[in-house]
């Protein structure tokens, strides 16, 4: 390959990444579900004719992207690429073939150039309701969790599959939002296909097979180079989590062998009898994400950057569930996997690995109205709202980092954002009375853990509602690293006092409020090594107390003598 070819390939690469980012922006702007439009719970990617991911959008969430990367091959196995026709669109939400629960729907569209399918555009979005029990961990079998769409046509040669849409409309709680989101997902891929074809015309190439191989190859080489710099060996680590009815243990052994990293989850807990289990795709997604974050954060994600990292987990276990095990709230465990990987890598590259963070987002699925709360709660309520279902995404603190404090209230590893309180209250009969940093929740350290937050939610006029709780780290705090102290554990309770369970649907009675205290990140390094001024600032800003400064950091801060 000549030098100009290489420069040209690099330009095409950049162009593909920007085309796919445009595609993601389209779905955000056209979507109906709050999870997509306000929170960015989506992903988008472009694939070659063989179903390998060549580029992904910057916007998006890792659990989707890396799962989607695998799932496109399943579409091709059922519908070979040369049998596809212009205007065809394909869809699935099968957890085992795609992204691990029914809410994440993947739509795939072939792009045509000169009469031939030249690649595939795919995107995955979280649809707020797909029927069944709704988003939450309470189901005992996946069949209770929603409608399964096997891989099939969403549109045939431009005509929407009305049989499918008709079936779905009668099975979900909010058919208009669901249908609007399906349209947005089709529009998103159409846009990506237009950009892809325009790019082929401009660069005068027939497809992306050759340039795709270059991209995948370069990325693979970069990851391989990064792995080669690490010492070979087996690095075990384990993490304890709350689980639903009993504690969960995630046991990992990370093996570095020349150009390859393998993570084996042998020894982890068996599957839960509730919906917090992961399909293999999802386990792979968050595990490779964890590895890539540490060893190659600037290497664009595609088939090549994922390939040198392999994952195995015992079949039927919590990280490799089989049908009909329930999987709806799998993010609760899945989003902890990067912390597990970081724990394995900490002894290998201590200067690149942060302390543990809150991990999984706290996403209360709230339901109100006559069918949304328990009968005894309805009986004691003076007033009820209309029926509604809403999900709010919220974050705790990330772990202290090797050179910086952890980030307060920041999604990690998820790429999702929180919706504005004013947007939620405009659409739903709720009042979010408090959404504020949770003081004293960041683990002390040379670099302090990020703070969690306190959230207080009530029904409008005190109307009762129920919450599908799917929260973790209420028993197991995010641990500090290298002498750093633990972050604060999470708490779930009613304002009137009683504690609630961290998993499962529970009611918030008339006049009461739900209080969530989200975990803070663990500290990194010995707190006694923390910069004095940083401790003083934390006291002045009320993130810690003067007593904490003395007991955790050994620094005497006299607030009366210090001005802001």
């Amino acid at each position, binding site marked *: 390959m000549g030098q100009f070819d*290489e*420069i040209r390939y*690099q330009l095409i690469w950049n162009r593909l990444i920007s*085309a796919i*980012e*445009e595609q993601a*922006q*389209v779905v955000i*702007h*056209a979507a*109906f579900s709050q999870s997509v*439009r*306000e929170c*960015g719970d989506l992903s988008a990617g472009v694939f070659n004719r063989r179903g390998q991911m060549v580029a992904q959008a*910057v916007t998006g*969430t*890792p659990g989707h992207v890396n799962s989607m990367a695998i799932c496109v091959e399943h579409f091709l196995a059922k519908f070979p690429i040369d049998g596809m026709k212009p205007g065809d669109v394909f869809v699935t939400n099968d957890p085992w073939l795609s992204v691990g629960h029914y809410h994440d729907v993947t739509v795939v569209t072939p792009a045509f150039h000169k009469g031939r399918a030249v690649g595939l555009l795919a995107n995955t979005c979280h649809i707020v309701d797909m029927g069944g029990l709704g988003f939450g961990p309470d189901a005992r079998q996946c069949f209770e969790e929603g409608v399964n769409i096997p891989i099939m046509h969403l549109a045939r040669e431009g005509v929407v599959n009305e049989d499918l849409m008709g079936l779905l409309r009668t099975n979900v709680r909010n058919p*208009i939002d669901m249908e*609007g989101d399906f*349209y947005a997902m089709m*529009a998103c891929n*159409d*846009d990506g296909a237009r*950009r892809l074809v325009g790019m082929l015309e*401009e660069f005068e190439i027939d497809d992306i097979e050759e340039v795709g191989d270059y991209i995948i190859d370069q990325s693979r080489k970069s990851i391989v180079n990064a792995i080669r710099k690490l010492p070979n060996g087996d690095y075990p680590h384990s993490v304890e989590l709350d689980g639903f009815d009993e504690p969960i243990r995630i046991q990992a052994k990370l093996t570095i062998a020349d150009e390859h990293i393998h993570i084996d989850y042998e020894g982890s807990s068996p599957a839960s009898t509730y919906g917090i289990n992961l399909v293999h795709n999802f386990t792979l997604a968050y595990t490779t994400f964890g590895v890539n974050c*540490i060893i*190659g*954060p*600037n*290497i*664009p994600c595609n088939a090549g950057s994922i390939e040198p990292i392999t994952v195995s987990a015992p079949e039927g276990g919590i990280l490799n569930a089989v049908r009909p095990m329930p999987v709806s709230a799998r993010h609760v465990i899945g989003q902890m996997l990067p912390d597990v990987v970081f724990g394995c890598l900490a002894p290998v590259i201590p200067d690149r690995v*942060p302390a543990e963070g809150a991990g999984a987002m706290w996403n209360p699925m709230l339901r109100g109205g006559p069918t949304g709360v328990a009968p005894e709660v309805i009986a004691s309520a003076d007033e009820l709202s209309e029926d509604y279902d809403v999900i709010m*995404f919220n*974050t705790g603190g*990330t772990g202290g980092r090797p*050179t910086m404090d952890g980030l*307060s*209230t*920041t*999604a*990690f590893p998820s*790429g*999702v*954002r*929180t919706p*504005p309180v*004013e*947007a939620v*209250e*405009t659409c739903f009969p709720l*009042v979010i009375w408090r*959404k504020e*940093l949770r003081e004293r929740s960041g683990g002390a350290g040379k670099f302090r853990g990020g703070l969690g*937050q306190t959230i207080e939610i009530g029904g*409008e006029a005190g109307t009762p509602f129920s919450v599908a709780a799917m929260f973790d780290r209420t028993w197991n705090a995010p641990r500090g690293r290298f002498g750093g102290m633990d972050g604060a554990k999470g708490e779930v309770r009613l304002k009137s006092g009683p504690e609630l369970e961290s998993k499962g649907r529970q009611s918030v009675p008339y006049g009461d409020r739900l209080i969530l205290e989200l975990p803070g990140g663990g500290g990194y390094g010995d707190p006694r090594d923390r910069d004095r001024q940083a401790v003083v600032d934390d006291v*002045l*800003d*009320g993130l810690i107390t003067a007593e904490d400064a003395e007991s955790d950091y050994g620094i005497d801060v006299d607030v009366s003598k210090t*001005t*802001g």
Partner: protein
Amino acid sequence: MPDQDDKYRVGLDIGGTFTDVVLEGAGSRLTTKVLTTLDDPSLGCMKGLDEVLAEGGISPDDIGVIIHGTTLATNAIIERKGATTSLVTTDGFRDTIEMGTEGRPEQYDINIVKPEPLVPRRRRFTVPERLNARGEALVPLTEDSLETLLPALDAANTESVAVAFVHAYVNPVHEIMVRDYIRSRRPDWSISISSEVSPEFREFERFSTTCANAYVQPGMARYLEKFESRLKEAGYGGPLLLMLSSGGLTTVETARKFPVRLVESGPAGGAIFAGEIAKSNNMDKVMSFDMGGTTAKICLVDGGRAQSSRRFEVARVYRFRKDSGIPLRIPVIEMVEIGAGGGSIAWMDELGRISVGPQSAGSSPGPACYGQGATEPTITDANLLLGAIDPDNFAGGKLKLDGQAAASAIEKTIGIPMNVPPADAAFGITETVCENMASAARVHAIESGKNVDDRTLIAFGGGAPLHACRLAEKLGISKILIPRNAGVGSAVGFLRAPVSYEVVRTFYQQMESFEAGPVNHALKEMQDEAEGYVRLGGGPASGLDVRRQAYMRYCGQGHDIVVDVPDGVFGKDAGNTLKDLFDERYAEVFGRNMKGIVDAEVVAWSVTVSTAPRPDDVAAGDFSSASGPKPECRKAFDPVTLGLIDHAVYVRDELPPDTEVTGPAIIVEDETSTLVGSSFSARIVSNGAIELSRQAR
């Protein structure tokens, strides 16, 4: 201002490095650039004014209006040099401006940084009060709670206060109560309330905008006062108007109240400049391309009007990435700004790919070729090596460039790692930056539902004419215009801007239950408010241009699109009319619509009132003594044939209208050079602009 019409007009743009002054009148235009005096920017302004007045032999009483744009507000935010600001907010929302969206600007890097809020937690205070989404008080605010607030504000050494309550965009009563309470007791403090600064929903953006306004207010007020008094002392009697980020003009009084609306007023001048050129050349679809020392700005201009937006992010702290800055919800000219200017530094990423920016070498040490000891290659170095810039004639010959230093910087950073000769590496750099700009332009266009390839590119700012042809090739654009005075385009643009004011209000209406009465009432109030501001700015009592827009979406969606609302009072079936307009516009943006499936709603309304813009009446120049062009010859790199080939070099001032130049060629002037690509030909049009056309291959 009818009595001002025969006077000279001045445009004045304070940037981070230079202050540009443009004076127009009696059919001519004078320009100068002086160094910005950051300690007291009014000094630099006075110096620039003195220079142009002396050159033209004009006295201060001959000067009518002075139109002023500045990055001072932007820089105060970026450099954190604003006032000691305190925030008063709703109980439970003390940390909204710090928590933000809770997202990350980049997924894989654990070492990302997020912007520090403008008001630190120790100066963020809460009071018990709460409105619901309909503006009804769930917790009424009492004066008792304000009594304890005041000593806390005193103890925090407050100079400026931001007041921002949840749902105050629906009902400002609590915010007004706090403002009046504080104002009567602490008359020296600046006070900004969210229901005035940015009355729109989404609390993070509104609170953040209000804090930014409070943060820059005392400094801007002091500066404006000082400048006004210096002008008065020096004998200037005409009005002083300020350029807004929305592209309109406003009075000193309004600028003092809402200084956050001045953020990005310089680039807005550039967009106006492009818009006026588009109009006077009858160009319906234009893309303006303004490339300076640090960034490039790209803006779409349809029908002579730049696109507008209501959201902007200032002071991005992580690689210029979206969501890494402070969001401002204000009327702005919609543009995309990326770290691609003459001083942007080229480097290799860990995959061995060439990357450019966003780091810039600035003016010190500057590009390697400035010979001030810099060793990192910049775009200017690459252009020098490719022959696009003449080392002996840079900036009118004021700065001799060191080609050897440029070559070794490029060789060391790019050439050796990629194993290619310096010229190829330099080409890789300019190609990468052009590709970055093309990508940014494309993403920007899709976000607006527009095409780029059917547009005319209007290029200005020091760097744009060098890269315009290549950018056009990448975007499939076939026509480019390089206007006169391209180097000080923003300041020229100020002189074209209309006096204008935009009022935006959140006010929900679903189309199926559209209530014409309340909507008509609200729009009338908004129009009266906007007209009031325009008259303050010297606008006439009648003949004003009124533009009404609705921000609409399908019920259940979260993002809206802008729909132009027809003139006149709404009647019974206004809901249907608006719904049809929305469905039509939606299909334009997203390909399909959901007509008949779901109702639509208006989220917010905007009314913009403006005077007519001023046409450019400056003559093209006198070529009677010119003896015709005598081009020299220089080798420069041609991106189409991938080699160094001969380029004819012309001096722009020697080219009379209708002169035709075939590419490859270079047309030089003091402030910039136009590179005419081998697939382009150039023609000087009657108003002195260079028009470049791509020849069919």
